[in-house]
């Protein structure tokens, strides 16, 4: 097991290198670069000075070939842990994205946990009592949740909250806490603002989870070993939770890795609409303004999370399902 984990971690290195190269190339695909964006901004403001741009082009190394730029970025990252420099904000990327990533991880993790807490019991209950009133209600809600785009739900809920309570539900903090240092009051403020993103981000995820869980458990319930367990006189809840549910969980555990980037990207539009200080909007802005090291670092870190997520799901699978074994040879 330990050897397996170490080998998996070693595989991270070539994978990450490949991902970083591809993402760096993709970021540079659109025509122009940060300075063309700057030029157009300056033009729109009637403040265009070609010499300013020429000087910056040299300063930022935009006149160098692609591989040189990539090499410099990678080298700084590997040698000094330096993620590069944000042209637009004029600060090192690392000092810029820390809090955004932290909030993103908090919101994403909370959403994931909330989704599971809601979806798994409902899914199991729907499977055990198929075609009951409760199952129908869960199914209808599930389909609606799955079919509604996140951002639309966010807009509707925001408008509803505004129209009904006159309350501002956007953002993750009240204005008075936005700049405040971390304190218990700020954490409470964060929790008070978190319900809306949780509902919006969790709805479609929970909906599909319910459907999957229901189908998986239903499949397992038909199997002979369930009959056998019942025949042995085990209580019904024990029969269901110990065997069919455990087997039904397999597909979920194996998707932890992929659900992280899914949540992350699903959160982009939602975070923009809800004005959340999360990584998604910042990544989008960085892409639009061609702030390449900032965008590249986000994508890079996102890949790291995905890889870690995949590793976690593989480890969990072996723990939950004794049928999965490693060949230690």
């Amino acid at each position, binding site marked *: 097991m330990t050897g397996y984990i170490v080998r998996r971690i070693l595989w991270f290195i070539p994978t990450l290198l490949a991902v970083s190269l591809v993402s760096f190339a993709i970021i540079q695909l659109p025509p122009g670069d940060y300075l*063309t964006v700057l030029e*157009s901004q300056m033009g729109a403001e009637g403040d265009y*000075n070609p010499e*300013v741009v020429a000087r910056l082009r040299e300063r930022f190394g935009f006149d160098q070939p692609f591989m040189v730029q990539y090499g410099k970025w990678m080298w700084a990252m590997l040698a000094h842990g330096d993620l590069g420099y944000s042209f637009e*904000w*004029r600060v090192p990327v690392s000092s810029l994205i820390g809090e955004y990533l932290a909030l993103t991880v908090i919101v994403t993790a909370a959403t994931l946990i909330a989704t599971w807490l809601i979806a798994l019991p409902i899914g199991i209950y729907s499977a055990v009592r198929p075609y009951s009133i409760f199952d129908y209600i869960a199914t209808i809600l599930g389909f609606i949740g799955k079919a509604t785009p996140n951002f639309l739900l966010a807009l509707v809920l925001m408008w509803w909250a505004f129209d009904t309570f*006159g309350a*501002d539900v956007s953002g993750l903090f009240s*204005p008075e806490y936005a700049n405040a240092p971390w304190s218990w009051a700020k954490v409470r403020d964060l929790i008070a603002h978190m319900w809306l993103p949780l509902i919006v981000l969790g709805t479609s995820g929970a909906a599909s989870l319910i459907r999957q869980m229901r189908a998986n458990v239903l499949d397992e319930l038909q199997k002979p070993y369930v009959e056998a367990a019942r025949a042995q006189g085990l209580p019904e809840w024990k029969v269901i939770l110990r065997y069919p549910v455990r087997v039904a969980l397999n597909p979920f555990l194996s998707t932890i890795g992929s659900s992280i980037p899914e949540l992350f990207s699903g959160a982009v539009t939602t975070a923009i*609409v809800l004005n959340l200080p999360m990584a998604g909007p910042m990544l989008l802005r960085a892409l639009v303004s061609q702030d390449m090291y900032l965008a590249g670092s986000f994508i890079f870190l996102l890949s790291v999370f995905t890889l870690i997520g995949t590793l976690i799901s593989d480890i969990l699978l072996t723990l939950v399902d004794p049928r999965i074994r490693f060949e230690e040879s």
Partner: protein
Amino acid sequence: MRTTQVPRLRTIALPMGIALALLGTPAFSFEEAPMLAERVAAGTLPNVDERLPKTPRVVTPYDEIGVYGGTWRRAFTGASDDRGPQKLMEPRIVRFVQTGPETFDIEPAWASSYETNETSTEFTFHIREGLKWSDGHPVTTEDVMFYFEDVVGDDNPWPWPSLMEQGDSRAVISAADDLTFTVTFEQPSPLFITRLGREYVWMASPKHYLSQFHPSYVSTDELAAAASAFNVEGWQDLWGRRGKAQSFWLNPDVPTLSAWTVKTPPPSEQVIFERNPYYYAVDTEGNQLPYIDQISHDLFQDVETLNLWVAQGRIDLQQRHMRVGNFPFFKENESSGSYEVVVWNGLEVDTLWPNQTTSDTVMAELFQQADFREALNVAIDRDTINEIVFAGLATPMQAGPPKGSAIFNEELVGKWAGYDVDRANELLDGLGLTARDDDGFRLRPDGDTLEIVITTALFASDINMLELINEFWSDVGIKTSLDVVERTLYLDRVNANEIMMGHWPMGRAAFFLIDAGSYAATLMDNSWANAWGEYQLDRGKSFAVAPPKDHMIYDVWSTLDAALTAGTQEEAIALGADILAMHAKAPNWVGVVGAAPNLFIRSNRMGNFPAGFIRDDITRDIGIIPTEQLYIKK
């Protein structure tokens, strides 16, 4: 009648004229904000009389003497949105002021006065005696010389500003004493003072602070230490518009001459500015300005969020990012958000730019025909567009400086702005474009369908308007297709002469000579002849080509040159009027609607904000009013 809000201040109403009387001798001691009085009492700040210059700038409040305190709440979109806050508090040596419903003027700001010689080659400025930076250090001509010798120029952190050039030579700046300096040009520069009110040239930099980041003053090691203290790669990153040391909104420590200085800089979710205790202006009762303690800017991602904030009453005064199309929404929520929509007059005209030198030579030849351009113009029903797209709030017109601009030509803005389908058809038939394809569209002389590709940038366009134009032109047999691109790509295409017809507003009309590129075809964003414009600019573009002999554009170029080097601003304005008259003979573009209202959201607690002013980049948007006399009602 003006009245005061606070009994502490003298309650007697003051006549307007007292402002002038005060300029000579201050009749009484000055008052200051409570938050500053506390600091004075604590001994951390000198008295207000010592902080103000001997003759402060006296600002007459629009409605009434204000009260001190409060926070002005605004919103911003990110690091690149620094012009928003900047325009509230530009540290200008001279400033635009509105003097009547459609007139404006320039007056000294941190200079006490200036003189111009008869040939417009010499400009002498007098710094207010006792003027101080926001850290209390005196402002002298040392700071002016530092700006021109060490901050801008070839070997300096920032290029030499084009404002300080005339013809091929640069202005010479010389200081007579601590408070007097002269700018001398070889050739006349009649627009220098007006441009000084508009260009991003502040004329002075705080030498006592910034010299510690300059290679002429400190060692390489010290520069490296400063760079790492600011968390940037090299000392060059400390300088310039977004330089970590020099930028007014990135560095809380940099001394400024603005009414407010940054306290919490970006990248914060909420950027906060706080009053400059040394600001050089007072109101007519001697209260030091600004009235407002703080300005806060909340970061928003999507404009819908901002709209919601408006409806919730979270914005005190803002025009930036408010769209005319949202007028009904803003009006509807006025009472729940306790604000009012205050309208200023915009000077932009939505315009289509047929590129007379487009790489499609058949289309280029058509665009060069005045009859063809007239047909494109009169085939458009501008009233319908105004009603549908602009809620009837704009004015159907040809593109030119709208009424309220310093140089205005009534004929130009009315020319070919009517709707006459028969006339359009007649003109097109007259050009021999009578053959039609199976769909009823006219054929070009080479037998292809006559199709105009309109390129527009997402940022600027209202697609609804272009779709309506598409229909109107179809009615006279001209096919159009829309090419909607991102702003950067638009610029790329423009610079490669790949645009057949661009769509971009004609702006900066308040004083068009300052930025006359639209008329000379040299402003590439809205050029009616890119290749000719490049020929005049002579930047070595391969597609640049000389206009045909005797083309009116040569007259435009020579008249513009004459205007920019005329002996006086009056002569320049007369020559500018000639340029407008040349374009009034045969408009080279297709103006659609313009002079749309610009919407300010003004909360009911915000005082001293006037309605009905002109809003233009030239006159610095909201900066045409002294923002320091705005106040938050208790």
